[in-house]
């Protein structure tokens, strides 16, 4: 493999504590190394910013729900198609891009890893086929557990070992990465025409509460010592007053310590926090609860969060929170699709326009920015748009601009039709913090990598780590004349190396890299009861046989990267 030396760049690497110093980065055999030979290819990064490849902790980029969006929104591809160009195959789609466009767009922004945030286990084969067809970036997928019949039945009796054995089995057969929970109990209740809006609403038939599901899954997660923590989209998403449910959910994790060998410190990851930080009683008196939420997270070190920034675009919402999507179509009256996934989960899809002319959308925009600006530790707060729910991931550079420049935020606030309401219902106008490049590297690289248990693998530039290196046309020594320059610089890398292969040059794709699928292989003792329960459920309830369930072999996971976890001892 080629050797490279990236010279004269301003390096930002929270893993090594490097804050913009000029430092040479050496790449050999796909890894960062201390030094390379004299034949190494020299890349001049003078007056440029150098960071590790970014890590996406939560996005909906592969699977049946994403594809349902693609199928029922042909208009999303209208005027957003890109023709074949050099290495690039044609692509299309603005909020739900094709697999190829997804890989290219992440790479062009310097992203090396992306996590698909909700994999219905029954459709893991579909998820992996799409992941396989998304070039360059390494991807993993989180199977959903929060409404799964096995989990509900085991946790009703607080059977942590059985739950853990089931998780270990499911991660293996679906080639999954982490325990994802979406509206715990609520999506199952939706199959009965109901929902769980607080952590104490019982799930019909199963007679278990969301609080019991969340606590049990955290305990099972730590029992196994998985690389990532339980990753939760709590109950009551997107409703005025929902911040209380969010606080109640986070309180469940109080006093629980992380137990794992990956350096992960949190036991609960709260995702798209913006959607869960609403105060008020209706859309008229709707206001920000960002302060209450971030105060709690700042105090509790065993929680990490991602933001879920609203980008003020037309997009496609999609979630395993089936009842929420039904609620949403009742609000905006746009087309609705719903899908039930047998014993496991469900999903809904609705297009949504976050219009700057609507006060609620503008307030949502402000809340999404308040959260990272109010978080004291950037290592525990990561930037996402919950792609495509609050906006497409291709807007990350715009979110960076708003976070890094108070002027850019002010310009946006001034352009809102309901500016006064945004200022009275949120604290966005009082926040003068500007996120530094070092903090940005924490929020988009080192932080999410640590939360995912990948701190030894990616998110940094320490020798021995994956050679994922992004070089941006951004000179940190020069004052920013126009905030739009930030957005421009982070939209297209000057160069991007993925596992030691240069995949982007001057914003163009020059290689399809060597894409891998990340998954967690848990070696656990055989649990005959759980295996019997699984076999029985397949015979009694599933529409397919157990033999057809597994995402197995080269077709689905051609280039696996397994993270090994051993709980046999």
């Amino acid at each position, binding site marked *: 493999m080629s050797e490279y030396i990236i010279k004269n760049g301003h390096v930002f690497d929270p893993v090594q504590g490097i804050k913009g110093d000029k430092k040479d980065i050496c790449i050999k055999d796909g890894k960062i190394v201390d030094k390379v030979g004299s034949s190494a290819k020299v890349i001049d990064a003078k007056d440029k910013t150098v960071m590790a490849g970014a890590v996406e902790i939560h996005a909906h980029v592969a699977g049946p729900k994403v594809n349902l969006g693609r199928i*029922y*929104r*042909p*208009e*999303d591809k*209208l005027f957003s198609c890109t023709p074949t160009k050099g290495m690039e195959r044609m692509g299309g789609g603005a909020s739900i891009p094709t697999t190829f466009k997804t890989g290219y767009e992440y790479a062009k922004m310097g992203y090396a890893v992306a996590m698909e945030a909700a994999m219905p286990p029954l459709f893991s084969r579909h998820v992996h086929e799409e992941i396989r067809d998304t070039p360059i970036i390494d991807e993993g997928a989180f199977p959903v557990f929060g409404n799964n019949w096995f989990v509900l039945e085991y946790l009703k009796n607080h059977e942590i070992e059985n739950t853990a054995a089931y998780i270990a089995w499911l991660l293996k057969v679906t080639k999954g990465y982490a325990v994802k929970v979406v509206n715990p109990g609520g999506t199952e209740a939706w199959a009965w025409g109901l929902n769980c809006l607080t952590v104490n609403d019982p799930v019909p038939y199963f007679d278990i509460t969301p609080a019991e599901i969340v606590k049990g899954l955290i305990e099972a997660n730590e029992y196994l010592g998985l690389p990532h923590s339980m990753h939760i989209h709590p109950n009551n998403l997107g409703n005025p007053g929902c911040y209380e449910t969010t606080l109640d959910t986070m309180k469940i994790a109080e006093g629980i310590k992380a137990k794992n060998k990956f350096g992960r410190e949190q036991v609960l990851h709260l995702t798209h926090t913006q959607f869960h930080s609403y105060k008020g009683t209706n859309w008229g008196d709707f206001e920000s609860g960002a302060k209450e939420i971030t105060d709690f997270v700042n105090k509790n070190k065993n929680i990490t969060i991602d933001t879920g920034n609203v980008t003020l675009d037309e997009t496609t919402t999609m979630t395993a929170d089936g009842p929420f999507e039904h609620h949403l179509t009742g609000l905006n*009256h*746009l*087309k609705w699709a719903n899908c039930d996934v047998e014993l496991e989960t469900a999903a809904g899809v609705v297009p949504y326009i976050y219009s700057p002319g609507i006060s609620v959308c503008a307030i949502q925009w402000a809340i999404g920015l308040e959260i990272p600006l109010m978080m004291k530790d950037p290592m525990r707060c990561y930037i996402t748009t919950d792609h495509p729910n609050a906006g497409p991931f291709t807007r990350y550079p715009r979110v960076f601009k708003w976070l890094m420049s108070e002027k850019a935020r002010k310009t946006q606030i001034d352009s809102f039709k309901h500016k006064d309401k945004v200022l009275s219902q949120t604290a966005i106008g009082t926040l003068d913090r500007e996120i530094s490049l070092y903090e940005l590297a924490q929020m988009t690289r080192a932080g999410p990598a640590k939360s995912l248990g990948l701190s030894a693998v990616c998110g940094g530039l320490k020798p021995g780590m994956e050679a994922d290196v992004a070089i941006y046309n951004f000179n940190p020594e020069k004052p920013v004349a126009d905030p739009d320059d930030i957005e421009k610089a982070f939209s297209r890398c000057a160069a991007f190396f993925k596992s030691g292969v240069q995949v982007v040059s001057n914003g163009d794709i020059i290689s399809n890299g060597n894409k891998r699928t990340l998954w967690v292989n848990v070696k656990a003792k055989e649990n005959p009861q759980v295996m019997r329960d699984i076999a029985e459920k397949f015979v009694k309830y599933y529409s397919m046989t157990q033999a057809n369930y597994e995402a197995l072999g080269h077709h689905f996971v051609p280039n696996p990267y397994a993270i090994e976890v051993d709980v046999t001892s």
Partner: protein
Amino acid sequence: METVTITMKNAPALYLEADTITPDTFAGKNATQIAGLSVHEGNMPSTLGKYFEVSGNAGTTAADTKIVVKGDVKRVKYIGFKMSAGEVVIEGSTDQYVGAWMTGGKILAMGDVEAFAATAMRGGELIIEGNAGNYLGAAYRGDWRGMSGGKILVKGNAGSDIGMYMTGGEIVVNGDVDVHAMTHAEGGKLIVRGNAKSKLGGQMVEGSIYVFGTIDVMMPGFKPNGEIELEVDGTKATFAHFIGDTGERHKKKKGVVQYGNLYKKI
């Protein structure tokens, strides 16, 4: 106003996607530059000059530019695509997407036009002297935002699904219309001087339809609302008034429920 005449001399074997034949793209260009504009024959990129003989130079702006299209352009799509000003005259029949997404200016098609003409049109004028195809002034596939402004006149007949998801503007059809006219409409006006088929105004929540001839089968969701004397498109007559589609959700404006209006000449 400067006139550019393009004459088909070398007919394409496949359909030609010529979204560059608009006053906006021609503006400020001479005949040679216009001949060099890109088009697609099937999936292959090509130039306008390969198929058309170009004579005359365009004006400096779209508003100063008139395009006359001569010859057989039945296999040419997208004439007048996204145009904002100026004039296009098509001296014959043409294919799909004429005047699609147009925001201003005027198009005169002297023959027939195929489907998707004036898709999501926002302004301007489209006159079709022959017949119009399906989905005239409708929304793009999957979209819920159809024609929102401007005026369309069809001197012949129009196909099915015209004015689907229409939110504004006006369509006048001197002849007959096929099924599903004004489906899902949330505004706008459709005048049919001939006859209409079934599913007229299905799922319509706002907007108006005027029919001078017969309606094949009425939608069951429309209910009679008396008779009314009206002057429509220069004709004074008595119309039977229906409101609907009552199977749908209807907005309230100042406390009054808004319905789609269907008027049939008695």
